[in-house]
């Protein structure tokens, strides 16, 4: 089911949290939502889940508009809020049953769904415990189980892996990947590696605006634009190497690497590649080339670049 957000604007009093935001998520796509704190991620997700009424703009899920058909839309959405609020005075099974009833799952199916969720989310050993006795990781799983219990077409997960240990993070990522094959998922996170590992597409927002949209590779290409190589040369004089490489037509800049004496970073002019020329230069001068590898711009750098204003 497609999610279409059109010109979404949200004011909190005088403060503009989301400013004319528009994007689409196709069915079966996992969209990663990135942005610094206060960028408007959570506000946008709350508006899609139908909790906040937007000041302006339209949100459509499938054929239904969130503000016109809130009940229909809410039945199709599984939502995990940011701080994962739970009724701490209930035990896990009772809580899941309550959520299942509110999601209007047929009474005959409720027990099956609860058992399946307990299995999928790994709550087998904790299912009779009070939620107040659970650790943060297990609470997060209960939150996820609650979001998945009615087998929704659309999942909105606000920071789903906070508080989990590394093993659990991997498990939850795999779970999201698995269920993401047939569902539309929007997830927010501040762990960039996680977004890169789980999401098909990344949306970076800053101060309520979209600043980047695309796959991780597309973002890299768009942000750097120039080829950057890291080379290591042995049996050569440092200054000679820098001088020779700098004289190549396609090379923009040669830089030494701080902690290694025979490594260099070579940045080409936009649209040019200097790999072959670098190799030739080494051969001509009789230097031994032991490393020649493209340097990928890290997602962290792109993120910082785009959101630092």
């Amino acid at each position, binding site marked *: 089911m497609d999610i279409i957000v059109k010109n979404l604007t949200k004011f909190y009093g005088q403060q503009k949290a989301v400013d004319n935001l528009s994007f689409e998520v196709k069915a079966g796509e996992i969209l990663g939502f990135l942005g610094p704190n206060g960028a408007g991620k959570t506000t946008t997700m709350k508006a899609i889940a139908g909790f*906040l009424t937007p000041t302006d703009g339209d949100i459509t899920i499938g054929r239904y508009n969130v503000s016109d058909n809130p009940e229909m839309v809410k039945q199709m959405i599984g939502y995990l809020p940011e701080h994962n*609020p739970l009724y701490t005075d*209930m035990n896990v099974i009772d809580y899941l049953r309550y959520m299942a*009833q*509110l*999601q*209007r799952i047929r009474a005959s199916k409720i027990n099956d769904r609860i058992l399946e969720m307990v299995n999928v989310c790994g709550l087998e050993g904790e299912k009779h415990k009070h939620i107040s006795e659970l650790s943060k990781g297990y609470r997060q799983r209960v939150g996820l189980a609650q979001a998945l219990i009615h087998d929704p077409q659309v999942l909105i997960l606000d920071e789903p892996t906070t508080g989990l240990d590394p093993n659990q993070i991997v498990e939850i990522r795999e779970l999201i990947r698995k269920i993401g094959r047939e569902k539309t998922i929007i997830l927010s996170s501040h762990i960039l590696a996680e977004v890169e590992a789980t999401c098909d597409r990344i949306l970076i927002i800053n101060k309520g605006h979209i600043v980047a949209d695309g796959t991780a590779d597309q973002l890299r290409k768009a942000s750097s634009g120039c080829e950057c190589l890291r080379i290591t040369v042995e049996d050569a004089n440092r200054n000679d190497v820098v001088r020779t490489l700098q004289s190549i037509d396609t090379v923009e800049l040669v830089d030494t690497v701080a902690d290694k004496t025979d490594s260099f970073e070579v940045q080409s002019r936009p649209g040019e590649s200097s790999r072959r020329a670098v190799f030739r230069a080494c051969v001509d001068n009789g230097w031994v080339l032991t490393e020649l590898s493209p340097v990928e711009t890290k997602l962290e750098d792109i993120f910082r670049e785009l959101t630092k204003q």
Partner: protein
Amino acid sequence: MIKKIFKTTSPTLTIACRELKSHFDSLTAYILLVLFLGFSGIFTWIYGSDVFFYGQASLQAFFSTAYVTLFLLIPALTMRTIADEMRGGTIEMLLTKPVTRWQIVGGKYLSVMLLIIIALALTLPYYATVACLGNIDHGAVLCGYFGLLLMSSAYAGIGLFASSICGNPIVSFLISLAIGLLFHIGFGIVGHQFGGIGGQVAICFDMNSHFDSMARGVIDSKDIVYFASVTFAGLFAAEKTLESKTA
């Protein structure tokens, strides 16, 4: 049609059941029941102008003590209902389920009323005992119980509104007590102090005058309309406050 009615009532019932269960799980229900039965029992049977003081087989003594006890206990019962959901953030969980604000407020109201019905049902032995002592006017007793229910419903409405205002249960307890006090004695005092149209209007809002006639066994549609409107006004205000929190 029936399906549609079921669809709108079923989330309300689901919420009401969970609320009622959580009242009993957290001991609040037991403590309030004991307090209610204790107070009304002492003042009906043992102390002050009790049943024996009247010298008649009537439950007047019980109705007037229950009237005061419920006035104090209902705010304690309602104070956490919506305030806790807002403080814990679970209101976000509820409102992103296919549930309307009215169903949430309605479910909470229903759970409070169910608990009050349980409390009142537990006082039926009083009725049976007094009936053994002499000739009791069954109609008047029935009417008195009905009056207590209506009056509780009005305070439950006020309490839910107070609970929806902020996330602090103590503050909402005090607010609902303050609003309740206004209806309980405030309007009466104003009405009796000042004559004229203003005084007349104030008397109309006084809960005592509406309850007294019912406790004596007179059912007037005017009284029923009064209690129903106070209840509805409270629930309506609670729903609107909830709406404003998500705007």
